[in-house]
């Protein structure tokens, strides 16, 4: 299903966390290329840097900064999404990138408990909107409903997350990730909190989306799940060690 054009390219990404006096290098010059329409599974031990890689690629976090240095290996690396250098984007550009170019799915669903299923799914469509775009709110609502219908949640639109099963919550989270039509789905252990049967249903949804051409980057520690992907990337100690 993948084409040979990379949609997402990370070059020598480094990320270090500072916890008081302790410095923890999480990513060490990790590079990865994801082709358009490709399904890539990132595997590795806990604490190996999988989620950090996902956060950097999704624009939730920035690589290390070293002022005055411009080469990727000197300034903590670069990320390119299509022709856009994500690492050079300002705050507003990153917000737009997160809202429209990528969609996140988390292990613990992270739905807002006060909102209904439909409102949760519409959330990315509501952020960063101009007043003029609000005239088009009905279109966003219709799209969110279509996605929820497709994932079997048409009868749950007005329910709150605490009234849903784990699988339903994760399907709502996937609908939320897709409502703005992103080109890349970033999934951080999407089945990690589900039983095998429900996890299988979620993987089936992801497989369908991949079949429709969506680029997927999925973090997992389960090799059987990883085997469903087009390609598996192994990360250890902050470095990509095998593809």
């Amino acid at each position: 299903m993948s084409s040979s054009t990379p949609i997402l390219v990370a070059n020598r990404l480094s990320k270090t966390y500072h916890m008081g006096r302790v410095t923890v290098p999480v990513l060490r010059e990790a590079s990865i290329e994801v082709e358009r329409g490709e399904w890539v599974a990132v595997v590795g031990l806990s604490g190996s840097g999988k989620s950090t890689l996902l956060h950097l690629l999704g624009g939730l976090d920035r690589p290390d900064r070293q002022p005055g240095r411009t080469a990727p290996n000197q300034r903590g690396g670069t990320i390119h999404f299509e022709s856009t250098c994500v690492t050079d984007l300002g705050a507003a550009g990153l917000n737009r990138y997160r809202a429209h170019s990528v969609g996140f799915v988390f292990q613990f669903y992270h739905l807002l408990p006060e909102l209904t299923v439909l409102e949760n799914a519409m959330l990315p469509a509501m952020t960063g909107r101009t007043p003029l775009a609000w005239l088009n709110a009905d279109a966003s609502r219709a799209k969110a409903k279509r996605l929820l219908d497709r994932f079997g949640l048409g009868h749950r639109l007005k329910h709150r997350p605490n009234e849903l099963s784990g699988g339903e919550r994760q399907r709502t989270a996937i609908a939320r990730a897709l409502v703005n039509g992103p080109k890349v789905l970033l999934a951080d252990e999407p089945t990690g909190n589900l039983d095998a049967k429900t996890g299988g249903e979620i993987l089936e949804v992801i497989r369908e989306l991949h079949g429709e051409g969506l680029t997927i980057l999925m973090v997992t520690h389960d090799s059987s799940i990883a085997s469903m992907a087009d390609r598996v990337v192994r990360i250890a100690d902050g470095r990509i060690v095998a593809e």
Partner: protein
Amino acid sequence: MYQILLVIRFLTTRIMPIIAVLAVALCVTLVIVVVSVMTGFLDMLRDSGKRLVGDVIVHMPVVGFPYYRELIADIEALDEAEAATPVIENYGLLQMPYGPGGAGTTEQVQVWAIEPESLAKVLDYHRLIYWKAPTESEAAVLAQDDPRLDPGYDRWPAAMAMQRGGSEKPGAILGIEISPFNHRERDGSYRTHDHSRSAQDRAHWMPQYEVRLTVVPNSSTGAADKEVRAQLDIVNEFQTGVFQIDSHRIFIPLGFGQELFGMDEAPRYSLNEVGPDGSPKRIGSVPSRVTTILVKGAPGVSPEDLRNAVKAAFLRFESLKADDPEAARMPRGVEILTWEERMRDLIGPVEKERGLMQILFSLVYIVCAGLVLAIFWSIVHEKTRDIGVLRSVGASRSGILAIFLAYGLSVGVVGSVVGFGLASLIIHYINEIHTAIGQPAPLLLWASVFVLCGGAVIGAILSILRDSALFTLLWSVIAIILAGVAVLLMLHKGVLIWDPSVYYFSRIPNHVDMTNALSTMGFAVLFSVIGAAVPAARAADTDPVRSLRYE
């Protein structure tokens, strides 16, 4: 727009913002109730003050000024003025008809010599006079044992004539608080009786006795003469509602007062020439004088405009008299003041008290901001992960900031509106509430609270059996509070907080001061937003990655 959705949902689905709204509402209620009652009290005082002196006062203490009839005619000819009346204001000693050994106790009083007919055109004289037959509508609201319902207590004609029928002596009208036998009831009415009794006792009713008034007359130059005594019939009593006046002022007839104070018309003698009988030659007369003219303004004329018009009229009048070689000299230093300027010493302290109360109660806003800050800090802490989720779907820092600022604004607005509603309700029914507090709690009420307390005890026992520490604690606390309330209600015999015999207003002011209410609401909203600002900024600064990892 997602901010509005989230604010509405945060407000309606969580207990914490409801607590914040309640905190703001109670703060707003407290300030509005206290300041409205204080403002009402001040307004009542102003109203009483205005009723006592009219709109404008022309005043020259002690020596007074002559030609007051002409001056009154000039003032009444002004478009701005409706009526004017002459008064002599001075001091004296009043020997009361009671006292040890029948000698009579002596009171220091302010003497107002008045003309009832013209005074009634400037002030509501009828309203001031206490012992008169009530109208039908007044009678309907009086207590059944109110002595004024008995025609035998009606002394209105004597108050107008300032003389008791068939008596040669001039009459005096005493402030109703001068006699210690006049006892003010909770409804504001009076009963006359000895301290050992509580029922009306005619023997201690003043308008049947005489008093002796001792004054020191003054010449037109202000020189004090030998004291003068006079015996007067008490013909009535008056009530202004202001204790300082009701306990220290008496009215006497103007003509008699002029004689008493040496301010009546007197012959004028030459210092150089002698008459046929060898005594100094009479060359004319010194006109009678008064110390004060009270002026009532025409409808729609402000006291300030009236004062300016009266000042101009007085200057013209003074100039004319100065040009007349036959006229007596007008004194220098005649004051022309509005009623508010004249009553400044009475109203000023109450205004300052209200200002002080407003400042003290403004501290409540800081408490309000502190409460909102603490609650919002906790909310932001609790919503850390959701903030990360919002950032992950494209929300900006300013968007997150806006959520919590709008949240604080909503808490402030809703709290203010609820507080205003609660305060309006309390103020509207403040007299009924006060009356209820002043009476013993009904048996049914405290018995019901005991029953509820029993229910809470059962709840606590069931919670123990279900092994729930939280509900055991909650039910136990509720049971203890209810038991305390029930016991207090049972022992409650009535508390009088607003004692009319102290405040001299029979009802607690029950009008919401809208200016104060709106400013209170505005400040509550402002301080709620200020309280929410710090947690909101903290939320905006929250690192989305750390937020998503937050458990």
